[in-house]
């Protein structure tokens, strides 16, 4: 512990200074400082977008963005969390949409107001080229928008920074759902299997397994043939 204490650095959480061990993530540093988090902590693994954080380093005018659970503290970091952003989302029934540009523009007319400034891309903690997927959206290229936006964790930092007041991540999920439902090629083997299950093809075999003794099951399990990896 003493070794760590020699390594304390100053950080400013919402303007107030705390000394925290170097090497901690922002989230763990806040907890070290005494914050019991309610807002602004989720999966703690970089997947949920609950802990979007804006920070600046003393003397540097530039704003930086990151996830509190994934970003390591630096000396003289001024940080604020952005766990909620009041972005607009459209309401729709996916079963009654068409996978067309008109659908995107109809539900999100503001998409066409995008200035292409790229502030969103700079803010993205996932390093997604948000500007590029917005550009794809403006061209009505749903497949491209879906692909480029795929790693989005919907933290809201892009929307928070957007001068055109876009909610990029909400438009992107509409594009992905349109792609997944209407544009992705269907799986014939899946449809065939559903038909077989509906026709009861496996019922007898599963009933037999359910009624087997543990010893019989063990014998069957040992005798499985394992499909090669590729």
């Amino acid at each position, binding site marked *: 512990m003493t070794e760590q204490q020699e390594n304390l650095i100053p950080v400013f959480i919402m303007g107030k200074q705390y000394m925290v061990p170097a*090497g*901690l*993530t922002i989230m*763990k540093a806040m*907890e*070290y400082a005494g914050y*019991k*988090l*309610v*807002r602004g902590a*989720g*999966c*703690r*693994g*970089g*997947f*949920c977008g*609950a802990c979007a954080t804006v920070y600046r380093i003393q003397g540097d005018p530039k704003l930086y963005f990151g996830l509190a659970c*994934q970003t*390591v503290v630096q000396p003289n970091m001024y940080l604020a969390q952005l766990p909620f952003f009041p972005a607009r*989302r459209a*309401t729709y*029934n*996916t*079963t009654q949409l068409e996978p067309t540009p008109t659908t995107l523009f109809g539900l999100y007319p503001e998409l066409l107001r995008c200035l292409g400034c790229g502030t969103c891309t700079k803010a993205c903690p*996932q390093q997604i080229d948000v500007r590029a997927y917005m550009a794809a959206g403006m061209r009505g290229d749903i497949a491209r928008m879906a692909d480029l936006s*795929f*790693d989005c*964790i*919907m933290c809201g930092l892009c929307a928070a920074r957007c001068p055109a007041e876009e909610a990029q991540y909400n438009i992107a*999920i509409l594009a*992905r*759902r349109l*792609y*997944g*439902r209407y544009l*992705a*090629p*269907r*799986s*014939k*083997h*899946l*449809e065939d*299997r*559903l038909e077989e*299950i509906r026709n009861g093809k*496996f019922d007898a*075999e*599963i009933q037999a*397994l*359910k009624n087997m003794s543990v010893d019989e099951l*063990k014998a*069957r*399990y*040992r005798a*499985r043939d*394992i*499909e090669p*990896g590729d």
Partner: protein
Amino acid sequence: MSGYPPEMQESIRLVEATRPRRLKETFPTMTLEEREAILKAYHPDYKDETFRAIRVGVSKGQRMPLELADIVEGRPHIGPDFDLSDPIAETDVLVIGGGGAGVSAALLAQENGAKVILVTKLRLGDANTMMAQGGIQAADRPNDSPAIHYLDVIGGGHFTNIPELVEALVTDAPFVIQWLEELGMMFDKEPDGTMVEAHGGGTSRRRMHSARDYTGAEIMRVLRDEARNREPDITVIEFSPAIELVLDDKRQIAGAVVMNLETGAKGYIKAKAVILATGGGGRLHYQGFPTTNHYGATADGVVLAYRVGAPLGYLESMQYHPTGAAFPEQILGLLVTEKVRGLGAQVVNKYGDQFVYPLEPRDVESAAFIRECARGNGVVTPTGQPGVWLDSPMIDIIHGPGTIQRALPAMVRQFARFGIDITKEPMLVYPTLHYQNGGVRLKADGSTEIPGLYIAGEVSAGVHGHNRLMGNSLLEILVFGRRSGRSAALWAHQARPGTPTLAHLEKWNRELEEMGVDTEVVSPILLPDYTRHQ
């Protein structure tokens, strides 16, 4: 510049040196007898001194981890005299939990004509579902079948699974995949539509469907988006965990008392049916293990259901995921998806030698890692954390350059943040607390012993026996989320509610006293406390 310190880099040189040889090697799998022996000797479930029997309730005598037993035997947040006369809301179906199980249950309850309120502790979608990377199992290829899937599941679970639950799991699986596609989920596919499917630990067929390594995140954000489209039939209340279930004078479920996590205000939500989908308890850090789990994973559902008399099961077994990050310290315990091994990465010790088949069932694989480190063949980090190497660069050698970036973007990103390029350097891993195999006893239709109380997902017990295979938890939450949603709506339509009461708390408090349980613990605990106490 490598993010690894020099002494770890030395070991990496050895891993690189053995790689060409290992590319042609397959380490033999263990026999069932060898599996049993290594589990008994090295798996954390067999450390008797870290378990105890609970002293109260319908499953009195059941063994569970000490940390869990303490909160199961805890005191309620409210007294039996809490005022139920003026509910803050009323609904047909109340869903508790906003992960994949809860949201799929809400969707199916709504489709079956019920008005739904969903309460959740943090935000909608803040759950372990969001973090599941590797995939979801479903036997939908021609050389596979639900029966083969059944055998894999029950063998992986050491033949202790409930047969009816396994049947439901494997038979519904292909329908769940279709349902997700119709909701607009983007699966990994070949250009002709064939699903890209991989192996997982303990599978005899390739049946792991994926969406890059954001499989759970993709499922969760699609389900969440769909739930929001169905407002106000589905009303979502965030930052409002349930702190007690409410029964009526006929011992049927009658709703729950929830607490606003920000204001502390408590209120009764009256409901004809309740679906408990609160997930697991990794944040209790059994035996001091780090965890892959979400911040809110504190086993609330086990506590809530048990107080109203629902029996528990299988809680003597927890799942430790073999590949938790062991370095760097900042991401200790973070999940490194099993898909890394599914794609061909081997596991090696500090000398660069294999010591276990990479895709044994998770408990066996974990035990093998613990044994290797106990034998002194692990790598020890500067903070003293032991680990073994997961040789990720093999994936690009086997499948071609760019595969890792394409198939595992989340993993690449996670490690790149700390200066480690997993396309060129291996990852150091050690078992991490991952999944609660047991919980509240479940029936195939999603129901429990309490009329009107349904459950789904990690809070439930019996589907996986004593060990779950990869890709069966994303499947489970949707199979039983959908089943419980449908069942709860049907129940609500014909329910004859009595008078709500908290009489069970009087009984609970009396039992604690009679058994001499003198505890300060108030449960459910809702969130772990990581603040530093000076």
